[in-house]
């Protein structure tokens, strides 16, 4: 296998000229390009309303787009429902509002999808789920309901729930924005821990420290466009674009 082919194989997400209009005519994404390689951690930053959440939500078809192309793990995102289902099995997502299922116990939150979608035996999934809960540090809460947990604990359950499907890619949509300040750290620690594995992560966040320490690349989005894309030390210390400098001035 020649080197260029090997590199092409390792591309997990390839988005080319993605354009999206909302039904009201608002041009939310104005031609976004992004490539994410296997095992990479890419942090997406940008002011609110810049389209960063919308952009990563197109990766698992929670948002549609009108122009351009997205390929996830070799599967082209099209309107074909089978493709969408196949991609969603490979891509996990963690939401700002956790979105745990309040009527199910923590353990059932984790086991539902692997049993229903992957048709795996329940006992085996439960063992794996307990191991994951152990890993995010809340195994003792397995029988509780989400409403009985703190925000930080709920978000760690949500991460474990996504991991239980054994995805190859994890998307994080502002995972710490809805948390009380003292709970941000426990969630970031779990994410840091994950980044050391070979799972591919795309993280929308405002946590500068996390981006500096964990990201392989940092992307700045503004007004529906990818403005800057660079390694963290370049991004935070020597950004090329004026827009990036202005953004960093505002948040640092």
């Amino acid at each position: 296998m020649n080197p260029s082919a090997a590199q092409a194989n390792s591309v997990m997400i390839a988005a080319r000229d993605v354009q999206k209009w909302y039904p009201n005519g608002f041009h939310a994404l104005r031609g976004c390009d992004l490539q994410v390689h296997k095992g990479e951690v890419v942090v997406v930053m940008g002011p609110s309303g810049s389209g960063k959440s919308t952009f990563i939500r197109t990766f698992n078809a929670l948002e549609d787009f009108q122009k351009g192309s997205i390929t996830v793990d070799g599967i082209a995102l099209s309107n074909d429902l089978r493709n969408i289902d196949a991609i969603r099995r490979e891509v996990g997502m963690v939401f700002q509002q956790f979105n745990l299922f309040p009527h199910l116990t923590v353990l059932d939150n984790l086991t539902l999808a692997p049993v229903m979608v992957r048709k795996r035996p329940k006992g085996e999934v439960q063992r794996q789920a307990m191991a994951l809960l152990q890993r995010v540090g809340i195994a003792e809460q397995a029988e509780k309901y989400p409403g009985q947990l703190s925000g930080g604990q709920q978000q760690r359950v949500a991460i474990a729930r996504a991991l239980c499907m054994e995805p190859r890619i994890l998307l994080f949509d502002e995972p710490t924005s809805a948390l009380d300040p003292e709970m941000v750290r426990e969630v970031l620690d779990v994410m840091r821990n994950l980044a050391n594995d070979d799972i591919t992560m795309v993280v929308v966040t405002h946590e500068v420290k996390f981006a500096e320490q964990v990201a392989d690349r940092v992307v700045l989005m503004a007004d529906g466009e990818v403005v800057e894309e660079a390694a963290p030390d370049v991004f935070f210390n020597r950004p090329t674009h004026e827009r990036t400098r202005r953004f960093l001035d505002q948040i640092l």
Partner: protein
Amino acid sequence: MKPLLRRLRRELFATPGDALLSVGLIALLGSALVGFLRWALLQAEWAVIQANSTLFAVGRYPIDQQWRLWLLTTLLLGAAGLSWGMLRAHPRSDREGILWPRNDRLAVSLLVLIALWLPWFLKLQPGIQARWWALVAMLIGLRWLAGRFGRQLPSKLKRAIPLLWPTVYLLGMVLISGGLGIVKVPPSEWGGLLLTLLAASFAILLCFPLGVLLALGRRSELPLLRWASVVYIEFIRGAPLITLLFLGQNILGFLLPNGLAPERIWRAAWVLTFFAAAYLAEAVRSGLAAVPTGQVEAARSLGLSYPQALQHIVLPQALRVALPAMVGQFISLLQDTTLLSLIGLLELLGVARTVMANPAYLGKNAEVYLTLAVLFWCCCAALGLGSRALERRLDPQTIPSR
């Protein structure tokens, strides 16, 4: 006693004005109660109920076939006793740490008191009286047995117990109408409480799936489905039930496949079903609206298909929210069955009207209507209690106590 006195003083006699109002109201209510009791115990002649108790219960159901209804009653009470006992064996505690079911012993004592008093009041024949006592004894006995030993049953058997209900229901249909080797009793001979409960339960059971489908249709992204649901719901809600019932007697024969609604009773039951489904759909829709969109997104992002997300994530949450409104619909559906008397069916109100038309019982309307009211009140209270218990049981905050 002291706190009670203090509380009375605070709530009823805080100011001279309050005191005056309280005394006045208590006097008014007291005199009404005394008047009622004097009428009920001294003046009312309950012979009209006593002589017609069978008619009120089952209408003109042939006497030599009534063993089938006794068997059905036995099965129903047996299933009730078992389920009650299983609930007792698996109690849950909620936020306040109170065990469910609450007031369990109180309910049993009340049941025993009613079982002792009612046959005496109705002046039943000793044989029938003994049967009722045996049935109540079986109910309480099964409740005790299942409550005592229910936990030790193998879990496969435990999961089968809720299935008793649909089985008994279908069996009951056969027992009531005949067929499968037993003599047929045509629906025109069913009546009284039997017909009321049959029509109401038939409509409640069938309007539920129909209502859920309509609610989903109304929120569908497919315009045709959405518009069809809206038109159906608004058409049904725009017409009084009584006109639909008359309409149904005349045109339902053309609308439904041959054989599905041959009898007037079944036609009426289908109209009740279609009518209730429209209202139920709106109750379910309010529940669906209460489930955040993030729930579907989370389910879909985990790879669940839309039907799977609906079944496991959206509907359980939506139906729990909609439960009180749905039970409200069921209660009014039960009461709406009285309209069947206007199209000539002998359900409770129809039976009552024929009894009151009998010259022997002229002027006994108050006794008859009071009995009807109490019967309906009991049925609705049972529905209400059941729904509140279910609500608590479905609350994610209630935990099985281990």
